[in-house]
C-alpha cells in the first residue's frame, strides 16, 4: 500500500488560516526575540507588552477562525473546532495575565535572562494551544513536549536559587518519564488500531468490536492503561501527583501560575479527545479507572491541602484537588460533561492565576515568605490586595455567585444527569472540605493580627482602580490610609538599599500587576453575567465533538 501510492499532501491556504491563532503567537515570539535585542537592560519589562499584544491579537483571531466552515486542517493533524478555540482562548487569557504579572516579579526576584523568560512563556503557550487543537496522537505528543520543554527551562530559570533548580530537575525527570509511558501507550494503540488520528481510532474501534476480543484486545487495553498513566501524571492526578507541590513551590511564581492553568487546559482537552472521543466505545473499560482516580484525587488533594502552612504549596495541592473535579467531567463522558469541563477550565484559569498573582505580590525577594503567617493581617496592611485574594479564594472554595461556584455547579450537575450521582456527591463533600483551607487564608488576612517581624515586604503601591474594585467586591470595607511606612521599614529590614531607579521601575510595573488583578477579579465576579453564552458555546463545541 505504502510503496504503490506515494503520499502527497499540499497544505492549502485554508489550512494555514485555521492555525492563525498559533501563528500569531509564533509571530509574537519572534517579535519578542527581536525586541529583546533592541531594548536596553532595565527596560526589558516592555517585552511583556509585546507578548500581551500578541495574546490579544491572537485572541481576536479566534473569532475569525470560529467563523470558518469546517475545522480539520493539515491532513487531519490539527482541528480548529469549538473545543480547540475555547481552550486556546483560555490559554491566551492565562498567558496575558501571567505576562502582566511578570515584569515587576522578575525585577523584584532579580531573575536574569528576562528575554528568554518571555520567549519561553509564549512558546509553552503555543505548545498548549497545539496540544488542545491536536486531532492526531502525533500532534498531541508534539504539543505536549513543546509545552513541557519550555516549562522545564522556566522552572529552573533563577540560576542562583537552588529550589528552582531542584524544581526544574524534578519536573524534567518525572515529566519525561511520564511522556515515555504516554508514548508507549500511543504506540500500542496505533498497533491495535492501525491509526493515529483521533477520529480514525474511534471509527476503527466502532467498526471492529468483534476483532478486539481476539488478538488485538490486550494490546489496546495495555495501551489505554499506559496512556492513562501518562495523562494522570500530566494533569497531576493521584497517585501521580507527588511532583506537583514540589515543582509548583520551587518554580518562579509567575511560571507556577501559568503552568498550573495552561497545562491543565491542554492536557484535559487532549484527555477528553483521546478517551471520551477516540476510545468512546471502550468506555466500559476506562470509566471505572477514571472514576477511582477522580475520587482519590479529590479526597487526597483536599486532605493534603488542609495540612499545608505555605499558601503557595497549598495552592499547588488545591490544583491537585481541582484536577479531581475535572476528572469527574471526564468520567461522566457526556457532551454536557465535556462542556462543563471547558467552563471549569475557564473559571479555574481566572481564579487560580489571580490567587497565585496575589501570592507572588506578597512573596519576598528571596522567593520565600508565602506562609500563612505572611498573610496575617493583610486586610489591614493592603485592603485592595486582600480583597482580591478573598474573591479568588471564595471562588476556589465555590461560594456563589463567583465563577468557581458556577464551574463546580456545571460539573456536578452534568455528573448527576450523566448517571454519576455517587461521584457528584463525593465531589461536593470534597469541595466542602476544600472550603476549610481556602477560608483559613481569608481568616488570616482579616481576623489575625500581623505577625511582628515577619510582615511581607515589597507590597506594590496601592492602585486606585484596584482599590475601587476591591472596595466594591468587599462591600463595606472602607479606604484605608496609604501605608508607605510598611514599604520603607520592610526594605530596611531586608537591608536592600532603596534605589530610586528600582522604585520607579516598581511603581510603573506594579501598575501592570494591578491591571491583571483587576481583570482577574472582574472576570471571577462577573462570569455569572456571561455564563449562559459561554456555556452555550461550550455545549455546542462539545456536542460537535461527539459526531
Amino acid at each position, binding site marked *: 500500500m505504502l510503496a504503490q501510492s506515494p503520499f502527497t499532501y499540499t497544505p492549502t491556504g485554508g489550512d494555514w488560516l485555521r492555525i492563525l491563532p498559533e501563528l500569531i503567537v509564533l509571530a509574537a515570539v519572534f517579535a519578542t526575540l527581536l525586541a529583546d535585542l533592541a531594548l536596553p537592560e532595565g527596560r526589558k519589562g516592555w517585552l511583556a507588552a509585546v507578548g500581551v499584544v500578541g495574546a490579544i491579537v491572537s485572541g481576536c483571531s479566534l473569532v475569525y477562525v470560529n467563523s470558518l466552515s469546517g475545522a480539520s486542517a493539515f491532513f487531519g493533524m490539527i482541528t480548529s473546532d469549538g473545543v480547540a478555540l475555547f481552550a486556546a482562548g483560555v490559554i491566551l487569557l492565562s498567558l496575558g495575565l501571567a505576562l502582566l504579572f511578570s515584569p515587576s516579579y522578575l525585577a523584584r526576584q532579580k531573575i536574569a535572562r528576562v528575554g528568554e523568560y518571555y520567549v519561553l512563556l509564549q512558546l509553552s503557550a503555543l505548545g498548549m494551544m497545539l496540544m488542545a487543537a491536536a486531532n492526531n496522537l502525533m500532534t498531541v505528543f508534539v504539543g505536549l513536549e513543546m509545552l513541557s520543554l519550555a516549562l522545564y*527551562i522556566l522552572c529552573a530559570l533563577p*540560576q542562583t536559587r537552588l529550589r528552582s533548580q531542584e524544581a*526544574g*530537575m524534578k519536573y524534567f*525527570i518525572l515529566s519525561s518519564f511520564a511522556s*515515555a509511558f504516554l508514548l508507549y501507550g500511543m504506540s500500542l494503540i496505533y498497533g491495535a488500531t492501525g491509526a493515529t488520528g483521533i477520529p480514525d481510532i474511534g471509527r476503527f474501534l466502532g467498526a471492529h468490536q468483534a476483532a478486539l476480543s481476539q488478538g488485538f484486545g490486550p494490546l489496546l487495553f495495555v495501551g489505554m492503561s499506559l496512556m492513562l498513566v501518562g495523562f494522570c501524571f500530566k494533569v497531576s492526578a493521584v497517585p501521580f501527583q507527588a511532583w506537583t507541590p514540589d515543582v509548583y513551590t520551587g518554580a518562579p511564581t509567575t511560571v507556577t501560575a501559568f503552568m498550573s492553568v495552561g497545562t491543565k487546559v491542554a492536557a484535559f482537552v487532549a484527555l477528553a479527545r483521546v478517551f471520551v472521543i477516540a476510545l468512546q466505545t471502550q468506555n466500559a473499560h476506562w470509566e471505572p479507572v477514571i472514576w477511582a482516580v477522580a475520587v482519590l484525587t479529590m479526597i487526597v488533594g483536599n486532605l493534603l491541602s488542609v495540612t499545608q502552612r505555605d499558601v503557595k*504549596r497549598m495552592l499547588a495541592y488545591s490544583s491537585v484537588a481541582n484536577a479531581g473535579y475535572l476528572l469527574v467531567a471526564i468520567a461522566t463522558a457526556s457532551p454536557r460533561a465535556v462542556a462543563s469541563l471547558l467552563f471549569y477550565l475557564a473559571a479555574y484559569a481566572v481564579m487560580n492565576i489571580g490567587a497565585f498573582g496575589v501570592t507572588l505580590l506578597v512573596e519576598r525577594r528571596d522567593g520565600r515568605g508565602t506562609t500563612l503567617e505572611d498573610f496575617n493581617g493583610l486586610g489591614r496592611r493592603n485592603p485592595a490586595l486582600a480583597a482580591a485574594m478573598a474573591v479568588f479564594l471564595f471562588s476556589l472554595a465555590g461560594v456563589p455567585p463567583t465563577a468557581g461556584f458556577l464551574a463546580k455547579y456545571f460539573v456536578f450537575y452534568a455528573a448527576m444527569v450523566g448517571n454519576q450521582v455517587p461521584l457528584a456527591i463525593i465531589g461536593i463533600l470534597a469541595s466542602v472540605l476544600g472550603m476549610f483551607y481556602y477560608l483559613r487564608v481569608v481568616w488570616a488576612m482579616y481576623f489575625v493580627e500581623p505577625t511582628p517581624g515577619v510582615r511581607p515586604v515589597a507590597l506594590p503601591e496601592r492602585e486606585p482602580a484596584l482599590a475601587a474594585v476591591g472596595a466594591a467586591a468587599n462591600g463595606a470595607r472602607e479606604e484605608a490610609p496609604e501605608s508607605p511606612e510598611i514599604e520603607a521599614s520592610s526594605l530596611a529590614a531586608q537591608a536592600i538599599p532603596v534605589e530610586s531607579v528600582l522604585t520607579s521601575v516598581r511603581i510603573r510595573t506594579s501598575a501592570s500587576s494591578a491591571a491583571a488583578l483587576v481583570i482577574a477579579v472582574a472576570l471571577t465576579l462577573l462570569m455569572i453575567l456571561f455564563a449562559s453564552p459561554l456555556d452555550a458555546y461550550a455545549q455546542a463545541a462539545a456536542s460537535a465533538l461527539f459526531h
Partner: protein
Amino acid sequence: MPLSAFLTVSGVLFAIGALGVLVRKNPLIMFMSIELMLNAVNLSFMAFAHFLDSAQGWIFVFLTLTVAAAEVVVGLAIIVSIFRSRTNIDVDELNSLKG
C-alpha cells in the same frame, strides 16, 4: 520474525528503562534510562509500521527522535546548571522541597 518478537524486545527494553529511572540515583543515569524507554517505544512503532504496512508509525519515530534530542539539550543544561552550584547531583540530596 513475528511481530510478537519485536514487541517482547521492546517491552523488555521499556521495563529496563523504567526500572532504571526508579532505582538509580544519578540524574544522568535516570536520564539515559528515559532515553532507553523512548527507544523501546520507537522499536515498537517501527514494528507496527512494518507489520501494518502504514507510514504513520515511521513518522511518529521521527518525531520521537527529534523530541528526544531536544530533551537531551534541556535536561543536560539543567543538570549542568545544578552541578555548577552544588558539585553533586545525587537526587537524594535534592531535598529542599518537601511537605
